[in-house]
């Protein structure tokens, strides 16, 4: 009888506990989702699907997930790039820190990108996860919580000391570090002559120019080679140093759209914008490879090409153009890692880079080269070469300037620079795996279905038979902590907005 009473009481108590438990659990889940302490951590270690971080995709760029039996850990390797993953965003966060555990010996650069809002469909804010060129920079290095400082001569003992004095310094550069300073050339005077670029360029290009008390004045002589079907348009866009579009011109097709049509006659496209404030302007010539820029005439003193130059004064194009200038081209470059590619047999050649040489032996293959010295002079005996990299190039030293010095995308020529500040840290090594973190400001992040999307990019991976094994991805989301009062008002706002 006493058992009956005991179990009856126990049943009543247990029933209450079981009924209350889901309510308490829900309360706990809601307060966890509100991230009261302002910090939330998600981990994906490849052992099983994670509800908060998706598997990497697309699958055809990745190996299968492998298991290390000894340590009961898992890894997957990147075989092509870029690959993506998404993470859930329960609340509005200010910062995301992404930590990746991976292996890499040969790839000079691994980047992590956050999808951001922008004009294009594919907008990513890329930051270095590993930059071996920077790791190998033989300047004095100090690391702090905010980042790293490289010094040509040992002047500062701590990062904070440098940051305190940075406002008074002009001889420093910044790479992946927010510096709120407008690039100005102090003693700039507009030139009273025209600069004529007499080299033929093919396809999309972009360049910087500098304006002070003068109109932006360019004339492009363009021709359509008509080697493929369809119309070929050219759009010229100009952005100021705040990355705000200030000008756009659409240039229609030449009217010849068949691939059997001859190359079009030269057309003069004029761009003149007056009353511009002093500063750097970016000009984007957006077109397909069908468009050839035969000549650029400008009143501007400086003209520095961004990331790419495709030089085409080569007999390969003699079927379309009879007046190409086959003489060799010399390029002034501050790109630390150069890529070269030709699409035609006529473009196979030996390219000189300062005192070094790189042999282009095959078509449609990228050849990468790290010059021993920056700036470098690149000598192209035959042209018909696409030169690319993260940085700037000019067709003469006189027209070169570097307006990216406070927001570098990679190493560059440091002739007047004694300090380099960066948010980048050299990856830490443990048990054969490298670990590094990248910090993103989420103010401009593109949020779709309460998710953030990240990309992992290894720019040279697709051209080499290499792989990058990944062991773990950790996403740390950070925002201001919430008080109970703020949570209450947040709840009221939520109800007001939704009901």
């Amino acid at each position: 009888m006493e058992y009956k009473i005991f179990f009856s009481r126990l049943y009543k108590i247990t029933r209450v506990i079981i009924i209350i438990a889901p309510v308490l659990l829900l309360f706990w889940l809601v307060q966890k989702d509100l991230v009261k302490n302002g910090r939330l951590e998600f981990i994906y270690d490849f052992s099983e699907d994670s509800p908060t971080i998706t598997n990497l995709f697309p699958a055809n760029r990745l190996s299968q997930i492998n298991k290390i039996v000894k340590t009961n850990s898992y890894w997957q390797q990147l075989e092509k790039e870029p690959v993506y993953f998404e993470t859930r965003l329960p609340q509005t966060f200010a910062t995301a820190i992404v930590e990746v555990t991976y292996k890499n010996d040969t790839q000079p650069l691994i980047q992590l990108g956050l999808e951001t809002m922008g004009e294009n469909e594919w907008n990513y804010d890329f930051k270095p996860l590993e930059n071996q060129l920077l790791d190998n920079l033989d300047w004095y290095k100090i690391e702090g919580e905010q980042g790293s400082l490289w010094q040509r001569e040992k002047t500062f003992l701590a990062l904070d000391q440098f940051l305190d004095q940075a406002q008074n310094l002009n001889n420093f550069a910044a790479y992946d570090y927010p510096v709120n300073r407008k690039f100005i050339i102090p003693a700039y005077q507009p030139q009273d002559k025209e600069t004529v670029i007499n080299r033929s360029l093919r396809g999309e290009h972009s360049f910087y120019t500098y304006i002070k008390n003068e109109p932006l004045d360019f004339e492009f002589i363009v021709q359509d080679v008509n080697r493929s079907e369809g119309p070929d348009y050219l759009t010229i866009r100009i952005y100021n140093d705040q990355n705000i579009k200030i000008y756009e011109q659409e240039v229609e097709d030449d009217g010849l759209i068949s691939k059997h049509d001859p190359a079009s006659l030269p057309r003069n496209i004029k761009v003149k914008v007056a009353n511009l404030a002093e500063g750097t302007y970016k000009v984007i010539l957006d077109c397909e490879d069908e468009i050839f820029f035969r000549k650029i005439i400008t009143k501007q003193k400086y003209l520095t090409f961004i990331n790419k130059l495709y030089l085409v004064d080569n007999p390969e194009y003699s079927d379309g153009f009879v007046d190409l200038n086959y003489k060799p081209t010399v390029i002034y470059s501050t790109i630390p890692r150069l890529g070269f590619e030709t699409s035609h047999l006529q473009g196979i050649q030996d390219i000189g880079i300062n005192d070094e040489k790189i042999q282009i032996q095959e078509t449609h293959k990228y050849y990468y080269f790290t010059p021993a010295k920056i700036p470098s002079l690149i000598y192209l005996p035959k042209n018909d070469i696409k030169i690319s990299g993260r940085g700037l190039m000019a067709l003469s030293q006189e027209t070169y300037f570097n307006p990216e010095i406070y927001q570098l995308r990679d190493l560059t020529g440091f002739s007047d620079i004694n300090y380099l500040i960066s948010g980048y840290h050299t990856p830490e090594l443990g048990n054969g795996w490298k670990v590094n973190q990248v910090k993103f400001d989420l103010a401009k992040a593109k949020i779709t279905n309460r998710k953030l999307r990240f990309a992992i990019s290894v720019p040279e991976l697709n051209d080499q038979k290499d792989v990058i094994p990944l062991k773990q991805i950790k996403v740390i989301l950070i925002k201001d902590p919430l008080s109970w009062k703020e949570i209450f008002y947040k709840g009221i706002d939520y109800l007001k907005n939704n009901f």
Partner: protein
Amino acid sequence: MFIKSREKRREQFLDDLGWYIVNISKVIFNVSFITFVIYFIIEHFKVGLISNYFDLNSLLILACLSGIIVIFFNEKEVYSTRKKQQSLLIIFILAISAGILSYQYLQNLKFLSYLIAILASILVFYSLILFFNRTQSND
């Protein structure tokens, strides 16, 4: 005499423990199933609120395990009026939930989404009532 009494006590203990386990399993089954439905709806409206930190499947596993215990060890009982009312309430909640979910998924159909949601609710309600009545008549 003493051994006989001890054995009787042991038997009594096991009977009462069995009663306790079966009845608690009933509670666990009901609570875990209803919690699953409620959490599922919440998750649908605010993706990640539940699933970021809690695996909803664990509630289903709990419902399955407790359901098996109830099916195998429950003594047949006559449904009281109170129990019938409780069951009807649960059926009503499930039917309304089905309607809300249908509306959520088909919102872009505008007028049709309301119609389909109401039909879905009615369909679920009558299906469950039918199922409930058949179970009762079998008992």
